[in-house]
């Protein structure tokens, strides 16, 4: 994996002029967002602004009614999560999307299992848990995540540790972009800081990072660029350094959405 520090010019993931309607609700009217490799983009917006919908469009969970998606500079159509994964896009969902009864290893390799042996033996689908454990350990160490053991069930971990595992899993399989939905929502101040450091570590590996959050001050500090949605439209899209928290809040509630 190329580890270019900071953002380069390739568009890793972009949605332009996306529309999405559910029954009587026009969730997305004209939403656009662009993330380059090595860049952290924050996606802000009030409740119902369409953040989660846009994230799900980028993950192939929803198909847009209009507009298009660009992955690694090429226009693509995503029909399912598996499509998005095939293009190297992984996500950290708000409810973490881990199976609590499964061990850290089994969670990290779910859908990407490493099998024992070749030929007949591999067709039996026997897991190579030792090799999986080594790779999981490696992936966690690279992000400086410490766990008591990768064999414990996820239900035995703390909230911060679970979040770290979810991020490590996404990073392990992402080749293009990592999308995070409210990664700090359930965490205390200190754990949130750790997640922000993780985001930087992920971007430094040359991956695009798109983070949806309500944690404005913290995410504004870590983000390179900010996209603000207001009633299903992209209201603002600019460098994070040029924005303050009050600016963001004003745009989120539509104060500047039309005027600016």
């Amino acid at each position, binding site marked *: 994996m190329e580890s270019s520090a900071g953002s380069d010019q390739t568009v890793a993931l972009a949605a332009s002029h996306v529309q999405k309607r559910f029954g009587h609700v026009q969730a997305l009217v004209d939403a656009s967002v662009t993330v380059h490799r090595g860049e952290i983009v924050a996606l802000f917006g009030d409740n119902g602004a369409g953040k989660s919908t846009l994230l799900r469009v980028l993950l192939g969970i929803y198909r847009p009614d209009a507009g298009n998606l660009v992955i690694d500079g090429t226009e693509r159509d995503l029909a399912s*999560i*598996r499509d998005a*994964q095939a293009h190297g896009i992984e*996500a950290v*969902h708000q*409810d*973490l*999307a*881990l*199976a*609590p*009864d*499964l061990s850290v290893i*089994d*969670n990290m390799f*779910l*859908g990407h*299992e490493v*099998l024992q042996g070749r030929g007949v033996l591999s067709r*039996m*689908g*026997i*897991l190579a*848990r030792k090799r999986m*454990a080594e790779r999981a*350990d490696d992936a*966690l*160490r690279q992000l*400086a*995540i*410490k*766990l*008591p*053991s*990768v*064999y*414990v069930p996820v*239900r*035995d*971990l*703390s909230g*911060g*540790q679970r979040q*770290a595992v979810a991020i490590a899993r996404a990073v392990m399989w992402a080749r293009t972009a990592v999308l995070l939905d409210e990664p700090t929502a359930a965490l*205390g101040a*200190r*754990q949130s800081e*750790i997640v922000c*450091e993780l985001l930087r570590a992920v971007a430094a590996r040359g991956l695009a990072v798109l983070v949806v959050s309500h944690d404005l001050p913290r995410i504004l500090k870590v983000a390179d660029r900010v996209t603000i949605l207001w009633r299903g439209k992209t209201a603002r899209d600019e460098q994070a350094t040029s924005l303050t928290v009050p600016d963001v809040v004003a745009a989120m509630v539509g104060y500047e959405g039309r005027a600016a």
Partner: protein
Amino acid sequence: MSAAAIPSKQSAEAAPDEQAVPQKSALRRLTSTTAFYIFLVDIALVIGFTFLSQNQVFWSLQNFESLLGNGAEALLLATAVTMMLAAGIFDLSLGANLILSSVVGAIVLSHLTNSRTQHASAGAILLTLVVCLAVGAVIGLVNGFLITYLRINSLIATLGMLGICTGLGFVLSHGSDITGVATNIQSGFGLHSVLDIPYPALVAVLILVALWFVLRYTRYGARTLAIGSNRTSAERAGLRVRTHLISLTMLGGILGGLAGFVDVSRFDTTNTSGHTLDALAALTAAVVGGNALQGGRATMFGTLWGAVLAYVILDGLVVIGVSAFYQEIATGLVLWVAVAIDSSRYRRRE
């Protein structure tokens, strides 16, 4: 970031090298399971019944052989229940599946039986087996389709299937059990023993062990448990959850069909009225053994000991001369106690 960067009880003392060390020793993990306690209860019951029975006849090869023979069908169904429960789905239609597949299999075999010798060729018996398995597979396929594509709750989908299969079984058998079935299915399989273990019991135990391995060591097992633990997470990990669930209901259906074949082979006839509660007995065995109703945690050996428990109580009461009706009462009580202990342990861990 430092070692204590993520604040928690464990990380403070966890050095990086200790990452791969499991939290408890293998022995302690084994002895803390419900399956282990039920196993101890089984042993205690066997000892108890042995001393209570006249001349200790409970402890006899003959008695154990009959125990194993009677338990084989129940064990097959309980194994099927365990696989499906692991993914968080129920199958109430297993007993009805057994009835219908045994009726269809018995009809096929009775047509291929030489009426003079009362024997059938090995090919005919093999065909009967295939027919039983196929009936079970179709039942499982329909169950899976109802649960996944029509999004009918598995309890309801299989409850409907329970009625349909039971009814179809009666329609096809005209309300009376199928007779004129080749007797060599009995001598050759149903009542045949190797090292005093009846074939059906041997098959049932081998399948249970094989599926224990599948759950514990294979990708299929890990995905099954992932779906049961958190279906959304399995979908988001990119698993084909619907296909997987259908494969599970078909596996369960096939085991139900196999139990139907075993039923014909042991009694040389069908028993359309004797299996209506079998699905519930199988569920009881699985839950007593420590399988989580909500999925995600499964224990095949728990199921084994749970099934053994029901049959030891049944057999033991008969041997010591107490009415077998008490078996159902005893099993019901054990079910409550086992689940209460299990859920209180999980509350403490949360």
